[in-house]
């Protein structure tokens, strides 16, 4: 082996390095792909995303266009899923509803994820009284049923999309905080972090280069896993009458509104519930698949 260093060759290899990096993700993707259920989930979610983006092209109707004289109509050629209690085309509202659902879901997980991951990082890394305070707060909040606390919080701040996000998020973050903290505690104690200090890494650098990248997959998985909870919680709040406001086409409120017409127009509640189930199931499958894919040790063997 010649020891003279050929810079050009090496640079070429550095390029490969970048390719390999993507292929890391690619490997994860391969593992993910192998899981049939998660592929089904992914396709569900892609369908919903597609619908959310192209809703206006998929339907000739306006989701807010009421028609008092054609309300609660049966499904027909004209209105594939019939009309709702204000004579609006139900399918159109459900299609547009995917926008609200994704928006609410994403906002919730981002919001609670942001708080939870930050506080989890702080608690895990700083330890001592910071940890004590944050974790006690987590304990306290987790003693309350989410929906009930969210209901009260939504009551405080009034209803509406953003308040739903905040209400659910204010409890939801505890899950992230616990996960992230646990993960950090184990990483913090790990040998490679000690090794990092031994070569002279500074604390911020250790957090940034050693701890965060190792927590990130957990966080990403968490976000996927929490998405269903967020969607269901927001729908339940709508059901209890403290959710997203009409006339926004939100699945939860459509299902809630439709339940009064369950004997007469069962498809309203049914199809709205189906959309929720479809999306939530999709995210659940994905979350499950991701967990396995990101963490090769936990694969079904």
């Amino acid at each position, binding site marked *: 082996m010649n020891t003279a260093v050929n810079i050009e060759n090496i640079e070429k290899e550095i390029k490969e390095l970048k390719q390999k990096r993507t292929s890391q993700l690619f490997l994860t993707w391969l593992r993910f792909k192998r899981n049939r259920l998660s592929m089904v989930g992914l396709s569900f979610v892609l369908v919903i995303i597609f619908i959310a983006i192209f809703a206006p092209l998929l339907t000739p109707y306006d989701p*807010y*266009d*009421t028609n*008092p*004289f054609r*309300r*609660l109509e049966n499904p027909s050629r004209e209105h594939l899923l019939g009309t709702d*209690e*204000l*004579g609006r085309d139900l399918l159109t509202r459900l299609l547009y509803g995917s926008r609200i659902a994704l928006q609410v879901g994403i906002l919730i997980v981002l919001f609670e994820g942001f708080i939870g991951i930050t506080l989890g990082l702080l608690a895990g890394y700083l330890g001592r009284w910071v940890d004590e305070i944050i974790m006690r707060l987590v304990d306290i909040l987790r003693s309350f049923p989410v929906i009930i606390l969210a209901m009260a919080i939504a*009551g405080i701040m*009034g*209803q509406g999309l953003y308040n739903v996000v905040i209400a659910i998020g204010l409890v939801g973050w505890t899950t992230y905080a616990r996960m992230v903290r646990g993960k950090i505690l184990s990483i913090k104690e790990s040998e490679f972090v000690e090794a990092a200090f031994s070569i002279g890494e500074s604390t911020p650098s250790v957090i940034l280069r050693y701890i965060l990248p190792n927590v990130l997959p957990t966080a990403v998985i968490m976000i996927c896993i929490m998405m269903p909870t967020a969607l269901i919680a927001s729908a339940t709040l709508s059901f209890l*009458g*403290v959710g997203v*406001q*009409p*006339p926004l086409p939100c699945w939860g409120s459509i299902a809630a*509104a439709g*339940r*009064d*017409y*369950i*004997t*007469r127009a069962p498809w309203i509640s049914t199809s709205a519930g189906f959309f929720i189930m479809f999306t939530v199931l999709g995210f659940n499958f994905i979350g499950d698949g991701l967990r396995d894919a990101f963490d090769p040790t936990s694969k079904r063997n």
Partner: protein
Amino acid sequence: AGDDSEVRIAVQVEPSKLNPITYQDTETGFVLGSICDPLITVDEDGSFSPNNAIIERFSVEEDGTVITFVIRRGIKFHNGDPLTAHDVKFTYESFMDENLGSPHHRYYTGIEDIELVGDYILRLTLEETDVTFLTLARIRGHVLPKNYIEEVGWDGYERHPIGSGPYKFVEHVPGSRIVLEKFDDYWGQEPSIDRVEFRFYPELSTAIMALRTGAVDFMPEMPADEFMDLEATPGSGLAFGTYQKMEDHRICFNKREDSIFNDARIRQAVAYAIDVNELIALTRGEMAVPARGRVPSFHPAFAEEANAYELNLEKARQLLEEAGYPDGFETEIFAPAGYRERIQEVQQIQVQLAKIGIKAEVVTVEWGTYLDVTADGEAPMFRERWSAGVPEPIGFVESWHSQSSWNPIFGVYNNPKVDELIDEIRRTIDDNERWKLYHQVQEIAMDDVADYPLYWPLVGDVYNENLHIPEELWDPFKIPIYYINHWSFK
């Protein structure tokens, strides 16, 4: 019901306290209606009638300040005590006692004196002539047992209320049901059904399913949608009945200085833009009468000449332009959460107003918050409803009086002329004169669009077809659920 001697009634809201002087909700009224007897009743034609009532007869002195009641003899409370003028007096005094916190307290402030002429005769003296007193202060029909309450206290009463009505209280299983049982010593029509059970179904769909499967026999005030739907369902095994409810539905505006709706032209524009027929089609189908004034159209006080604001978008736009908003503006319209019909209508109104450029955002808030924001002027527009007694329709117009405590609740309306007319109404004994004053008030208020009346609802009760409910009970002044002793199973 499988058992002929029991009728099960579905109600959506659980009565909180069975206390005749503090209750607010219709459901408590339903229950108390069977436990207690009315002091006075109103006939089909809307006039006071002592039939079926605790009062055998009553008389009003010339200047209207002295009212004498003659109490029917032989009426017994469920505990066996006889009902006398003492009890009636006690009841009036309870309403007047501020500490008991009756929300109707203010109707009784006009009483100067209550005099027991004998055990069965009572004389009320009012401070000044107030023709409306009897309507507003007719004790909502429930006479309280003085001795019993003094014995067990108000708490005790609420736990086990008694009255002189056809059914006596058996138990209240919180969250589940209230059970009543036939009172054997009832003075009036003897009940044919032995037990009455009020079951609480907060979830409407559940209640309907329960009705359809025969788990309950009767559901009062079924929402119009469901009513019509059930009615159209063949073979459901259900029967139906309707009556007009003395309840007006309206759009209110925050008319305070700082509000955009302070300008009458804008309110008029809104009035022209709203298509009431559409709203009715939306939430009530056949089950409503469009309102054109503030008094029911069958009543002589109804003002035929008042401006009804037929749909006219041209005119609406013109008014907006005059007011300085040719392109419309953005605003909000509030409805209380959980009130389905109001929310649906508000959404429709949103669509209607959009046609003249007013972008009204729909805001639904919790009932408690709703009461706050509407009363505090934070809601520019809101969808209200108001029920008031008859025969005297004063309740429908009185909130327009600037001194009325209801005034702020409906967004503040201040018109000295209207104030004057309403004061005058109370003093005018002659019916026809008074009706004319009513006409005037309504005409002014309608011109001003103090608020915009939408419709009078027809209320529908749904029940098991095996249940027989006499025809004559389907009357705005009777209402079947208050006369369960007249029901029977076929």
